[in-house]
């Protein structure tokens, strides 16, 4: 027994010594490499210094320093987001510049400028005069162009407005405080009050907003299936008759009789078919029961109760 273990130890030692000698070998080669490279590096550095000296004489570095200063100004003035936005719209900018510098556009602008210079000779026109002028063909065409411009302007403004609102909406809550949305800015002074505070205690406001976002209650489950906060089945596929009975029991309906089941089956079938929960009117239509019956079966908020028991989402709509 002990002889065999001795043999094993010996083998391990041999393997170790082989590894050590490989390492030493590597180290030695690395040293040689440095030794040989040092003079070459020195030579290269000298050459590079000459080169740099030449560049300095030609003013490259001064230029670079100034460029860095300029870049610094740009970085301070614009955020990373601005630059990204610029990159995204560079094609648009170039297109605009090209469109503006087309010969015929320049000609129109030049004509307009000429007219302004000759403006002294134009006679003042009142309301009736301008109405009369709209009979001229040139004026009519001009109005059409103006309307097109206004249309494009309006469309652009609307898109920009929508984009701005979207950004505000997506911004973190702490930032949104600074820009009250149109809905909340009713002009009451107390609404603007919080804007003064958040800088003072950023940590606490963050915690408060996080708490405001947190659901007030833990999500409940019933018979192993998850419920939404309002008590509707989270996933209608999980529905079983046992879950229906459990939910009904919780809603104060002790026993589901045949007519309850008739309605529940009809609701589920309709939900599977249309993909949306039926309202009471549709429940009556698909189940063959009358509205009066449905109210009798589920005395308290029948639409919601029946939808809960049938395991479909909350019905939307007013009817």
């Amino acid at each position, binding site marked *: 027994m002990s002889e065999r273990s001795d043999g094993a130890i010996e083998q391990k030692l041999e393997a170790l010594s082989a590894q050590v000698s490989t390492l030493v070998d590597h180290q030695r080669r690395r040293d040689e490499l440095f030794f040989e490279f040092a003079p070459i590096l020195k030579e290269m550095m000298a050459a590079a210094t000459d080169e740099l000296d030449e560049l300095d004489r030609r003013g490259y570095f001064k230029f670079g320093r100034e460029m860095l200063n300029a870049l610094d100004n740009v970085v301070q003035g614009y955020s990373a987001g601005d630059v990204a936005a610029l990159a995204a719209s560079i094609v648009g900018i170039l297109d605009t510049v090209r469109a503006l510098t087309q010969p015929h556009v320049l000609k129109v602008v030049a004509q307009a400028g000429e007219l302004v210079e000759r403006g002294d000779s134009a006679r003042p026109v009142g309301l009736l005069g301008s109405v009369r002028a709209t009979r001229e063909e040139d004026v009519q065409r001009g109005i059409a162009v103006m309307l097109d411009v206004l249309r494009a302007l309006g469309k652009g403004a609307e898109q920009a407005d929508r984009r701005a609102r979207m950004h505000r909406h997506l911004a973190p809550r702490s930032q949104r405080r600074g820009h009250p949305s149109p809905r909340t800015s009713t002009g009451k002074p107390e609404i603007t009050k919080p804007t003064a505070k958040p800088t003072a205690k950023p940590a606490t406001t963050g915690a408060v907003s996080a708490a405001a976002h947190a659901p007030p209650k833990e999500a409940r489950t019933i018979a192993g299936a998850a419920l939404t906060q309002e008590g509707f089945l989270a996933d209608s596929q999980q529905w079983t008759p046992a879950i229906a009975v459990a939910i009904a029991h919780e809603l104060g309906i002790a026993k589901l009789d045949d007519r309850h089941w008739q309605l529940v089956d009809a609701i589920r079938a309709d939900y599977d078919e249309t993909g949306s929960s039926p309202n009471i009117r549709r429940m009556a239509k698909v189940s063959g029961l009358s*509205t*009066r019956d449905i109210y009798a079966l589920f005395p308290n*908020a029948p639409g*919601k109760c029946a939808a809960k028991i049938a395991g479909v989402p909350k019905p939307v709509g007013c009817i």
Partner: protein
Amino acid sequence: MTERKVSLIVSKGGLDDAYPALILGNAARQSGIEASIFFTFYGLDVITQSKVDHLHVNLVGNATSPMPTMVAGLPGMENLAARMMSKRMEDLDLPGPREMLEILEESGVDLYGCELAMKMFDRARDDLVPQVRDVITAGDFFDISEGAQIVFT
């Protein structure tokens, strides 16, 4: 849930005056809230057999109407607007006023006519739709509405 109760008063007979009250009453019942609706003055048209299917949209004096008042006052305009709105509601699968009244009655909303308005417009009980539970006075209405939130639409 605490017992909630709501009483709605309809005093105008336009389609746009009737619908909000009818829908609110229905929504109340759907939410398990007791509801009653009191039809008075021109609101009586909403529960009058010969009128309920011909309710118009008020265009003149309606600041939100897209039609200029000068145009809205022309003969036939209200008819046209009512027809357009009815068409729109049909597309949305909204029931018409008469069907709404039927739904309301089945849902357990109590519909009441105003006694004074009945006398004023010279209408009899038979002129009203059968869904009306009773013709009562304003005082009766307040007795019935005890503990209710009263909404004047």
